[in-house]
């Protein structure tokens, strides 16, 4: 049953360009996948480590900027991707060393500051980043000779990257290291007394989170063939954090649902409603009130509650029969 649902989901995802049939919406689907990849990366910290980062757009943007600079310097796409991810990992390590000095609010504030530093560099170091005008790249890669220039091709490439990310997250979450990380979220003191190196576990989780944020950053660069300081602004960090929280932290599907919600609101709803931000805000408020644990766990809870109510109604109907028959027996 579970395998069938998984297979069905894969078939639906793989055939999106055919049944959507319109390159505008196929592009939006690709955007959902790229933000879902980003949100899954952030979820490692927010969900599994219990460390809320508000500076992840910095890592996302560092990957995109590094990739753009390498490509414009004449590097091939393969080298540019590897180089950009390497730079992102180094940046994530620096972010982690600085921000892991605190937990809770301290951690949040340090990540905000780091994200703002990246934004300041992107905005002001014009000789390298081209400031407000941003950087453009001329081409998208063509893996195995397949062109990604049209919407369906790029969608499928994004889908492959997204599925690899999702698979990596599923393996990670079920692994002993994943359990160690969740342990440091729930009882860091106990974990230390049990023999775990809490700091190192969090540090490695930060690198893992940064790596997938970098992967998403490269997808973003190739999708837009352009990167500007807006990408690394605080609002971008807040947006991806909202995706994770609204979908459900510490779950596999939550960040994906959150990414879909935000991207759809941003692109589709904004075509009909000028104040789409207002609508998105209202949705977030509704989620916080009715499903504080997020859309995915909240829906699961609602489903269980509803199906439990239905099931309970049946035995009650059955139980209503015996009292009717009992008097007959007495007679």
């Amino acid at each position, binding site marked *: 049953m579970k395998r069938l649902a998984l297979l069905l989901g894969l078939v639906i995802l793989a055939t999106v360009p055919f049944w959507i049939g319109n390159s505008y919406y196929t592009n939006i689907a690709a955007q959902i996948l790229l933000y879902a990849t980003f949100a899954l990366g952030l979820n490692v910290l927010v969900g599994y480590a219990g460390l809320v980062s508000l500076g992840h757009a910095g890592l996302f943007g560092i990957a995109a900027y590094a990739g753009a600079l390498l490509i414009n310097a004449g590097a091939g796409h393969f080298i540019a991707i590897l180089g950009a991810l390497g730079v992102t990992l180094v940046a994530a390590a620096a972010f982690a060393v600085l921000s892991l000095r605190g937990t809770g609010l301290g951690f949040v504030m340090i990540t905000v500051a780091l994200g703002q530093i990246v934004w300041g560099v992107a905005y002001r170091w014009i000789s390298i980043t081209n400031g407000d005008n941003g950087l453009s790249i001329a081409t998208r890669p063509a893996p195995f000779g397949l062109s990604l220039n049209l919407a369906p091709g790029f969608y499928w490439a994004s889908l492959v990257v997204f599925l690899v990310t999702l698979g990596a997250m599923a393996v990670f979450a079920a692994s002993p*290291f994943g*359990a160690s990380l969740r342990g440091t979220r729930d*009882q860091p003191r106990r974990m230390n007394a049990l023999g775990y190196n809490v700091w190192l576990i969090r540090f490695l989780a930060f690198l893992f989170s940064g790596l997938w944020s970098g992967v998403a950053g490269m997808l973003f660069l190739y999708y837009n063939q352009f990167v500007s300081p807006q990408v690394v602004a605080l609002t971008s960090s807040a947006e991806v954090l909202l995706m994770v929280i609204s979908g459900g932290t510490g779950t596999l599907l939550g960040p994906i649902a959150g990414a879909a919600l935000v991207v759809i609101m941003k692109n589709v709803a904004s075509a009909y409603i000028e104040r789409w931000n207002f609508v998105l805000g209202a949705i977030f408020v509704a989620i916080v009130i009715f499903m504080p644990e997020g859309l995915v766990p909240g829906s699961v809870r609602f489903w269980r509650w509803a199906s439990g109510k239905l099931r309970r109604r049946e035995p009650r109907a059955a139980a209503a029969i015996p009292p009717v028959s009992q008097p007959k027996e007495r007679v």
Partner: protein
Amino acid sequence: MTALEVQGLDKSFGGLRVTSRVNFSVEPGERRLIIGPNGAGKTTLFNLITGELRPDRGAIRLFERDITRIASRRRAHLGLARTYQIITLFPRETLLRNVVLSLLGLSQLRWNPLRRLDRQTVLIDGARAALDRVGLGHLADRPLAQTAYGERRRVEIAMALAQNPKVLLLDEPFAGLSIDERRDVQELLAAIPREVTIVMIEHDMDVALDFAERITVLHFGEVVVEGTRAEVVAHPRTREIYLGE
């Protein structure tokens, strides 16, 4: 050979001296009880021994090895385990997963991001055995959040025992338990083999006095009296400080 030795241990929080020149040593296999009124510095002493706090002065030795400057997490690997007075467990996980985490802490597997934890039969069987030992085997797959307080106290002990420690520090293992539950825990502790040295903090004199061979009385961070059960109970200082006479 001593299992645990504390020498000239000092610890102050600002102007408050919570541990003052504390000396004591525990023989291998011994059952030692530490008593003292609230605020005597008993839990602080445990936190110093496990390394959660750093002493200002003094030394701590585990089987003659100086561990004063060894990181807290390494001490678990050297055979030191503890329970907490305030229950410190993983509420979102099952009882089994709680104990698995305890075993995983001493295993190299804890760094492995690729294997599946629920297929690590050695860890899982070990955790089941530890839960059986405290009489909770039948609740292994229940989430911790759905268990009673008395059961959680026993999970605390199961987690410490699962690590197969050489020295076990029990911080008020009877706190908040009913009379029946106390008896269960008492039997459980009595069944721990003599390879494990036990140091226990406890307020409940009835159960605690039966358990211990030697007793150390702490008062305002100082060791006031130390000796056998009879000596300590008969000592005028104990009566003055602890029994309030």
